[in-house]
């Protein structure tokens, strides 16, 4: 899918209306089938950028085009259909703890399924081989029938990526896919991801904290700084100085691994009192 952003500003609904937008005046054009890494210090607006492209966050200014159409002027039905063709993989794998891996992976197919088919799939998984194939790409096919809460953080992250591959989206928006993976696994996961996107001609936008991996695996790099575009260059033209400027006074982040964002602490269940 082709993407065009011009002069996009966006702010979170929870943010104060008079605050500076989380991303400001971002203009990017992405061709169909392109693979792009977005880098930048934490808080620089990478996640926000992905959410804007995913139509999860409405821009407060500027123009967004997805596949030649402005999603926010579409009728709800068509907007939902468009959303079904893209895949947003949040940073923390969005998997309910007691769900089984196979169900979690097949949830990637929901937009293309009828309601009846999705309910049936809860009782007997609709496409076990498909789910297994997607998991095998990330080397965790043997966990197919395990429960998500019995997996390690890294395994959960790979299940989240397998869900992306199980879906037949034409645009992958992947947020920090490597934050819980060791270097070897990281390399393998990124390879699987880029390879799969290439096979199906899908566009891939991936935010990354591992600058070296980004430069090695992606032909085009976007640098974000304080909510604005710092650079948008082929990987070969990104210099050491640019990176230093990008991570100015956050140099530790340039080399140190990203701290895994802990899953939000569950609010305690409300205390219930009964009369007997």
């Amino acid at each position, binding site marked *: 899918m082709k993407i065009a952003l011009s002069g996009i500003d966006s702010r979170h609904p929870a943010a104060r209306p008079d605050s500076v937008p989380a991303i400001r005046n971002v203009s990017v054009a992405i061709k169909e089938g392109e693979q792009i890494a977005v880098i930048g210090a934490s808080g620089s607006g990478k996640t926000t950028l992905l959410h804007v492209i995913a139509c999860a966050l409405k821009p407060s200014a500027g123009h967004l085009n997805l596949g030649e159409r402005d999603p926010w002027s579409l009728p709800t039905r068509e907007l939902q259909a468009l959303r079904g063709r893209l895949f947003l993989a949040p940073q923390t794998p969005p998997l309910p703890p007691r769900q*089984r891996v*196979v169900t979690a992976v097949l949830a990637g197919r929901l937009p293309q399924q009828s309601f009846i088919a999705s309910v049936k799939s809860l*009782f*007997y*998984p609709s496409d*076990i*081989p498909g789910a*297994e*194939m997607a998991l*095998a*790409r*990330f*080397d965790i*096919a*043997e966990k*197919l*029938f395990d429960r998500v809460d019995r997996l390690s953080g890294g395994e959960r992250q790979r299940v989240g990526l397998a869900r992306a591959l199980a879906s037949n989206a034409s645009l992958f928006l992947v947020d920090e896919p490597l934050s819980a993976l060791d270097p070897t696994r990281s390399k*393998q996961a990124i390879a*699987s991801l880029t*390879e*799969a996107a290439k*096979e199906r001609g899908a566009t891939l936008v991936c935010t990354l904290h591992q600058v070296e991996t980004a430069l090695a695996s992606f032909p085009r790099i976007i640098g974000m700084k304080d909510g604005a575009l710092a650079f948008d260059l082929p990987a070969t033209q990104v210099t050491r100085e640019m990176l230093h400027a990008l991570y100015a006074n956050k140099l530790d982040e340039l080399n140190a691994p990203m701290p895994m964002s802990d899953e939000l602490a569950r609010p305690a269940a409300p205390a219930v*009192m009964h*009369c*007997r």
Partner: protein
Amino acid sequence: MTPNSMTNSPGSGTTLATQRDPAWMGRVFWFLAAIAIAWPMLVATEFKPWVLFEPSSLKPTLKFLGDFVPPKVEPGFLAMVAKETWRTVAIATAGIAIAFLIAVPLAIISIRVLSVSALTGRMNLLPASVRYAARTIAILLRSVPELIWALVFVRVVGLGPTAGVLAIALTYGGMLGKVYAEILESGEPHATTSLLRNGSGRLQAFFYGLLPQNSAELTSYTVYRWECAIRSSAVLGFVGAGGLGQQMDTSMKMFAGAEVATMLLVFIALVWIADSASAWLRKALA
């Protein structure tokens, strides 16, 4: 997806046989088991929803419900409802007050923290058995529902609020006693035991060590129970313990829909007020 790409990633390819869901048989089994259990249950409860829509039951129902609007708002009737509502609240309050008087000694006797002999190891036989007895009394009182106590007392002292107050007092006395003891035992016993070690009496240790530590929780639990007692007291009216429930029972037996509607609305409002008052109090105490 090309087969080539599949074999590129390690550990795949060979394991890719079409699998069956291992949980499937279990699911089928539990589904059938649920039906096998549900069937006799539905038979035992005479679960026949279509009965509700047979003309012989639908007609009186509709007539009764039709009477609901408008509710009866005649001044004399409203005055009676107000008086009975107060009686319901009063039965609950008086019942809780007596329950409190029953519960406090039961709780104080039954908690281990206040044992002097337990300070130096095992509790002596006599105090241990007294504690055990207090606990048993609390559990026995609590395990008989207030409605059954009310049936008993209506036969002993006759119809009227006395039976309701006593029924609430006994059941809630047992409940409060048990829960007070649990709350008092759950905290850190250090302050209390050190008072006891320094030679203060059990009641002194209770008032200076145990009570201040737990007073907020104890109060909020009691207030919550008071709210429950209001519902109970309305229900006890149905067996003749006075109050709103008794009037409702009478009106229902006469199929007086308008009267029932008024009383239901008043009762819902009463529960709502008690609910918000107790929620507010618990928040203020926390």
